[in-house]
């Protein structure tokens, strides 16, 4: 299943947040979305997942989601969005409970995704006892449990300290190599973008328009050992964005 955005424009009241955004997410690809603070990245992702309705334009699912997908468009959030009153397993189970699955099927799925994210031993642990990295792993396990057609990830690593981020980035690459999931990945971090993205969509300042779409052809498995080469891509992206990032930084929030 592919996703296709056509001429998306969005407003909050009088504030134009997105203007005429147009791109596609093909199956099996990771599309990274970068742009300065407040340019509408999160908004765009919410539109993609049907959590908000665009003012103009349309967002289409092309093709049917793979059979057995319980929730084709599935989010991974920056703040993990785990229910603090449920254990790791409970948090995964939550998203299965509204589907017609037997208790056994459900616990099998839970055990399976926890194993795939190396969390089996943490099944019965409450979120507050987990480190940030572990929490995000639980959130990823939860996302995998509904067999998504496309993952919508909103800065999934930005709430983590940079060592944990490094570890999780490796895990994500490994996961992709194994499962070839489709994803739209929002980030501020250009290093993440060049490590994960098959395609990097660069947005301008608010109202967010597409400045450039950069394709990175190097296979994901090779990137870890070509950091210097990627550094070049990254520097190019940074040059594209630097001025706007600075301007966004100096912007006052309206009172």
């Amino acid at each position, binding site marked *: 299943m*592919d*996703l*296709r955005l056509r001429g998306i424009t969005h407003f909050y009241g009088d504030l134009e947040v997105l203007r005429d955004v147009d791109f596609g997410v093909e199956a099996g690809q990771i599309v990274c979305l970068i742009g300065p603070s407040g340019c509408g990245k999160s908004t765009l992702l*919410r539109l*993609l*997942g*049907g*959590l*908000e*309705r665009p003012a103009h334009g*349309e*967002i*289409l*699912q*092309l*093709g*049917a989601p793979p059979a057995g997908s319980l929730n084709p*468009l599935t989010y991974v959030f920056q703040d993990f969005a785990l229910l603090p009153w449920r254990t790791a397993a409970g948090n995964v189970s939550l998203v299965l409970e509204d589907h017609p699955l037997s208790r056994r099927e459900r616990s099998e799925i839970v055990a399976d995704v926890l194993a795939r994210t190396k969390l089996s031993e943490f099944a019965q642990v409450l979120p507050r006892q987990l480190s940030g990295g572990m929490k995000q792993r639980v959130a990823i396990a939860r996302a995998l449990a509904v067999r998504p057609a496309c993952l919508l990830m909103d800065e999934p690593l930005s709430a983590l300290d940079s060592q944990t981020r490094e570890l999780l980035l490796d895990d994500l690459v490994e996961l992709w190599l194994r499962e070839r999931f489709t994803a739209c990945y929002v980030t501020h971090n250009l290093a993440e973008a060049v490590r994960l993205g098959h395609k990097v969509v660069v947005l301008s300042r608010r109202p967010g328009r597409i400045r450039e779409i950069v394709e990175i052809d190097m296979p994901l498995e090779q990137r870890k050992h070509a950091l210097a080469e990627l550094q070049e891509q990254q520097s190019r992206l940074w040059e594209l964005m630097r001025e706007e990032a600075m301007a966004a930084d100096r912007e006052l929030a309206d009172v």
Partner: protein
Amino acid sequence: MSDEALAERGAAGAAAPVARPVPFRGGGFAPRPMRLVGLVLFLVLLGLWELGSRTGWIGPLVLPAPTAVFEAFRQLVVSGQIWLHLGASLQRLLLGWFGGTLLGLLVGLAAGLFSMARAGVVPLVAALFPIPKIALLPLFIIWFGIGEESKVATILFGTFFPTVIAVYGGVDNVDRNLIRMGQSFGLSWLSIVRKIVLPGALPAILSGFRISAAIAIILLVAAEMIGAEYGIGAYILLAGNLMATDQLIAGVAILSMLGLAVSWLLGRAERYFLRWR
């Protein structure tokens, strides 16, 4: 075949590339205040009540008609009595609330800052808070006499405890990082309390004021049980004694409006003092 044509065919052609708009599943869970609805509901209720009274479905003993209540209120205004009552009550309210708040602030601050004070104050407050003030009225008369003192004292006692709780809760919730920042810059203890702890506790203190103000108004009737000739509470008590339900409800409505006015004022104060939020 265009995407649009495919979209028409819907889920039927499962294997073929179908284009469907992403289904919307957000929204909700964000109730907004709608001023008009509240007003309309209020008027409708009033209308039904009046209708019930007129048709005799609500007996006059059970509840007087809104017009009767309004008439009682009008009498009160026309005769000028309302100002006597309001004046007396407001004076008691202000004195009692102000005294209770001031004492509560001091004690609450001490409990928030010093282990010793906390250890002494907290259990005492926990034990004395749930004591009904009406139960103590006979003692209040002996302690403070039947003048204004005992009435003010009733309200003062009622507002003191919730203020203590709000203040030390507020001090507890001041961001410890800010205090550590103050210490790291060598600020004096007094500066830290004045410039960091107090402003940081202000939101909690102000919301404590809402509670203590509501309690002060509720206690007005109890306070004015002690030989008050004037005051909204005394007016209500007298109306109750005479079973003059129209005056009773009019008095209660005045208290309710007083409560709304106080909460509006506190809302303004919050907006002013907490404009940094």
